[in-house]
């Protein structure tokens, strides 16, 4: 009975996170598609409105941030430590990669989009998690 309760408490927390994150991601996808569609139909409009439309997906992205922060607060002390080590790994790793490539850009390498930062940070976060989880197994 206790085993079932523990599993249900843990899965209930996971379900809550998936619900919150899923809802926020869905809202982000909807606003992003609407924003792209609106921008395509108003290519001739003045800049401030186009800027606002381009930035509009960041509003539901704040909800993604809120869902992630709520989940972080639900974690126990070891899970938080694991996340801390993974995030520190991703933070420092992204700094290394972005500075390294920045120096190469100075030599004439192609300029990369700011989107590339997350493209580096997200896999480094996952790699950091794998390393940290293994360390405390």
């Amino acid at each position: 009975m206790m085993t079932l309760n523990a599993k249900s408490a843990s899965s209930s927390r996971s379900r809550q996170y998936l619900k919150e994150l899923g809802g926020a991601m869905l809202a982000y996808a909807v606003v992003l598609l609407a924003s792209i569609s609106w921008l395509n139909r108003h290519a001739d409009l003045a800049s401030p409105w186009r800027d606002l439309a381009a930035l509009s997906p960041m509003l539901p992205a704040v909800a993604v941030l809120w869902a992630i922060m709520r989940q972080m607060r639900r974690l126990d002390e070891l899970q938080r430590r694991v996340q801390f080590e993974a995030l520190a790994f991703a933070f420092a790793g992204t700094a290394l990669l972005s500075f390294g490539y920045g120096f190469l850009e100075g030599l004439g390498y192609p300029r990369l989009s700011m989107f590339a930062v997350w493209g580096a940070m997200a896999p480094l976060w996952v790699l950091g998690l794998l390393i940290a989880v293994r360390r405390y197994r």
Partner: protein
Amino acid sequence: MKNSLRELRAQRGWSQTDLAERLNVSRQTVNAIENERYDPSLPLAFQIAKLFDCAIEAIFSAD
């Protein structure tokens, strides 16, 4: 630090999941403490001692 958490838990006939639920932590955290890969915080150590009705130093000792 060394600890006797695994033995204490076995005496009660609890699984790691049972103990995790009683301490409101994840099973992985119980496992890491039992394998001495992670030393719990003082509040969690007190919680463990209270649950097993003994002093902290009866469960945890220096290497």
